[in-house]
C-alpha cells in the first residue's frame, strides 16, 4: 500500500514501520490522519502522531497479550472446538440474542446479522444504550444533518447540548467543528459563535463563547420552550424557574439561531440518557428542523463507539431497522423496549447470548446481569472482560483498526477504511463469526435432513 513506507531515519531498523493516514477507532470521531510508528518486533505502536490523549492511550497501550484464542468455561480449547460449541449453543437456543457490534468493523457486523437471520435470533447494538433514543426520535421526526466537513466549511453557529467533547471526543472541536478554518469560515473559531448547553461547567466550557446552564433533567423543557419561541409562540413566564435559563437568554439564543447562516446542534448522551430519552433527542432534532424555515440548520449526535454508526447502517440495510431487531418469525421485526438487550435480559427472555466486543457484565443494570449469568454466553473481545470471564465460550479476537482492517463509519455516516498497524495472533471477529456461521449452516442442513 502506498501509505506504508519506511522512513529515511528508520532505514537501519527495518522493523520500524510507519503507517500514514491510519484511522483511530477509539471514539466516534474516527480521525483518519494518524501517523503511527510501529515497532514490529515488539508488536507495539511507539508513536501516534496527531492522536489525542485518548487515541494515544488506545494506540500506545495496545500490545499482544498472552492469552488463549478460545476458552470454554475458562479452559483453553482449540479455536475450532470453541466455534463448534458456539454454533451448538446458538443452534439450540430458542431465544438467542446478539449484542454489541459497535467496536467491530462492518464486515463482522454483516456476518453477525447473517447469523441471526439463520438462527432466528435477536440482534441489537450498543446503540440501544447510547443513541438508541436518537434513533427512535429520528423515526418520529426525521433529521436535518450533515457530514462533519460541512460544519467545518460552513457552520457559523455551533451549539453543543449535553456533551463534553473536550473529554470524550477531544479532537471534535479542533478537527471538525470549532477551530478549523473552512471554505466559508476563513478565520476558524473567530468566525463562529459557540454555545455550550449543559447542567454544569465542564472542561469543554472554555471553548464556548457562551455557556447556558440548564437545570438537571430540564433539557426537554428548555428545548420545548425554544421550539415554541422559534415558532413565535409564547411560553410560561416562569420559564427561568423551570429551566434555570432566563427568558432574555432564550430570546437571544433564538434570534441567534434564526439569523445564523449555517447552524449546527451537536448532542450527547447528557441529553439522550436522561429522563425523557428519545423525546429529548426528538425535541432537539425537531428544533433543528423547525429552524430550517429560517436558515440552514443541522443536528448531529456525537457518537461514542468507533463503529456504532456502522452498526446502525449495516443492521439497517440488512434488516430495514437500525437496532433491536428480532428474527423469531423468520423476518425482521423492530421494537425497542421489546427487542433491545437490556430490556430482554431484565425480563429474562433470552436463553443464549452472543456478545461481540462489548462488556455488558460490567455496565448493564443488575437484573440484566443476573439473567446473563443464568444463560450460556459467547463472547468475542480483544481483551478479557467481566463478560468474557463469565462466558461459556470466550474468543479473544484481534483489535480492529490496530490489528485488523475493514470499514468503519464515522459518527456522520462517512465510511472509512482501516489501516492496521501490525498483525495479531488472534483471529478477527469476522473470522470467528464466519466460522460460527458456516457451522450453523451445516447444523441447519443436518436438522432439515433429519426432519426429512
Amino acid at each position, binding site marked *: 500500500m502506498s501509505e506504508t513506507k519506511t522512513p529515511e531515519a528508520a532505514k537501519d531498523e527495518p522493523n520500524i514501520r510507519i503507517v500514514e493516514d491510519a484511522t483511530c477507532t477509539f471514539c466516534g470521531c474516527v480521525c483518519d490522519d494518524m501517523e503511527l510508528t510501529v515497532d514490529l518486533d515488539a508488536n507495539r505502536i511507539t508513536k501516534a502522531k496527531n492522536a489525542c490523549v485518548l487515541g494515544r492511550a488506545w494506540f500506545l497501550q495496545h500490545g499482544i497479550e498472552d492469552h488463549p484464542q478460545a476458552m470454554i468455561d475458562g479452559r483453553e480449547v482449540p479455536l475450532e472446538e470453541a466455534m463448534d460449541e458456539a454454533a451448538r449453543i446458538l443452534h439450540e437456543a430458542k431465544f438467542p440474542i446478539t449484542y454489541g457490534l459497535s467496536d467491530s468493523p462492518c464486515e463482522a457486523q454483516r456476518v453477525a446479522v447473517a447469523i441471526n437471520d439463520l438462527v432466528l435470533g435477536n440482534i441489537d447494538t450498543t446503540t440501544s444504550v447510547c443513541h438508541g433514543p436518537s434513533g427512535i426520535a429520528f423515526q418520529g421526526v426525521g433529521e436535518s444533518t450533515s457530514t462533519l466537513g460541512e460544519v467545518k466549511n460552513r457552520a457559523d453557529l455551533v451549539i453543543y447540548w449535553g456533551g463534553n467533547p473536550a473529554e470524550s471526543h477531544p479532537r471534535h472541536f479542533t478537527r471538525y467543528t470549532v477551530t478549523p478554518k473552512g471554505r466559508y469560515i476563513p478565520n476558524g473559531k473567530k468566525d463562529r459563535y459557540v454555545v455550550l448547553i449543559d447542567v454544569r461547567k465542564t472542561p469543554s466550557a472554555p471553548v464556548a463563547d457562551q455557556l447556558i446552564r440548564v437545570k438537571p433533567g430540564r433539557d426537554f423543557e428548555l428545548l420545548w420552550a425554544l421550539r415554541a419561541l422559534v415558532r413565535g409562540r409564547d411560553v*410560561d413566564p416562569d420559564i427561568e424557574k423551570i429551566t434555570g435559563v432566563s427568558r432574555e437568554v432564550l430570546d437571544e439564543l433564538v434570534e441567534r439561531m434564526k439569523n445564523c447562516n449555517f447552524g449546527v446542534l451537536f448532542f450527547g448522551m447528557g441529553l439522550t440518557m436522561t429522563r425523557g430519552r428519545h423525546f429529548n433527542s426528538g425535541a432537539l432534532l425537531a428544533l433543528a428542523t423547525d429552524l430550517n424555515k429560517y436558515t440552514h440548520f443541522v443536528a448531529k449526535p456525537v457518537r461514542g463507539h468507533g463503529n456504532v454508526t456502522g452498526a446502525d447502517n449495516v443492521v439497517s440495510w440488512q434488516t430495514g431497522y437500525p437496532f433491536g431487531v428480532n*428474527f423469531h418469525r423468520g423476518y425482521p421485526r423492530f421494537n425497542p423496549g421489546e427487542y433491545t438487550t437490556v430490556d430482554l435480559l431484565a425480563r429474562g427472555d433470552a436463553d443464549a447470548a452472543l456478545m461481540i466486543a462489548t462488556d455488558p457484565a460490567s455496565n448493564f443494570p443488575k437484573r440484566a446481569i443476573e439473567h446473563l449469568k443464568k444463560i450460556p454466553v459467547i463472547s468475542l473481545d480483544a481483551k478479557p472482560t467481566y463478560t468474557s470471564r463469565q462466558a461459556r465460550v470466550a474468543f479473544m479476537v484481534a483489535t480492529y483498526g490496530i490489528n485488523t482492517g475493514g470499514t468503519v463509519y464515522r459518527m456522520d455516516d462517512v465510511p472509512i477504511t482501516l489501516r492496521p498497524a501490525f498483525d495479531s495472533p488472534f483471529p478477527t471477529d469476522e473470522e470467528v463469526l464466519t466460522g460460527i456461521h458456516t457451522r450453523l449452516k451445516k447444523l441447519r442442513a443436518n436438522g432439515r435432513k433429519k426432519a426429512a
Partner: protein
Amino acid sequence: MHTELELTTAPEVPIEAECLSPAKIKGLSQSGIEHLAMMHGNRKVRVGDFFRVTGNGQSSLRLEGDLSRVKYIGAGMKEGEVRVNGSAGMHLGAGMSGGVIRVSGDASDWVGPEMSGGRIEVMGNAGHMVGSAYRGQRVGIMGGEILIHGNVKNELGSAMRRGLIAVGGQAGDFVGVNMRAGTIVVMGGMGIRAGAGMVRGSIISFEPVELLPTFTYSCWLRPTFLRFYLCHLGQSGFEIDDDHMGGRYRRYCGDSVEENRGEILVFDSR
C-alpha cells in the same frame, strides 16, 4: 358458554400467541384448538403443548394462569370476549377492533396498540406504551377504550387519534405525547411532560400536574362533558366521587409548539 385454556407449562422464553382470540378458536374442536400454532421464542409450538384446553371453540375465551410471558393475547379481535384470570404479556389486544378483553391481574407493555374499537380492561397494573403508536407511526389508536385500574408507566396513549384511555392509579411521564385527539383520564397522578406535542385531545388529571412551559392556563371550569365521561367510567367499575364529577378543573391549552388546540384539565377543588 366459554372455552377455557389453562396454562400448565411455564414457558422458558416468551410465547407469541395471536391464536388466543375468539375469532381464531371459534368453531374449532378441542383438539383443533390444541393444535393451533404459537411461537415459543423461535420455535413453532402448539397450544396444547402449554395449555390444557377445556371445551370447544366459543366466542368467549377464559385463560387461566400466569400469562405474563404470553404475547398478543386477543390480537386482532373483532368480537367476543377474552377473560384472563391472571396476568397478560405484551401486545395485549393489538389491533383489536371490537369485543372485550378483561385481565384480572397485570398487563405488560403495549396494551392495545393499533386498536380501533372494543374494550380492554385491566384490573391490575400495565406497562409502558399503553394505547400507544408503534415506533415511527404518526398515529396511534383510532378508537376503543382501554381501562387500567392500577398504574401504568410512560407514554400512555402516545399519538392516539380517537378513543378513551382511563387509568385508576398513577401514570408515568409523557402521558398523551403527540396526541392527535381522544381522551385520557388519569386518576392517581401522572409524571412530567404530559401532552408534549399534542395537537388536539383532552388529558384529565385528578391530581396536580407539573406542566410544560408551552401550555397556557385558560380558566377554571366545571366541564359538562367530563361528567359524561365520568358517568361512563363509573358504570365501568371505577369509583368516581362527587367532587370529581361536579368539581372545578383548571384548563390549560397546548401544546404551543403544535396547534395549541389540546387541553389538559387538572382537578382543582369541589
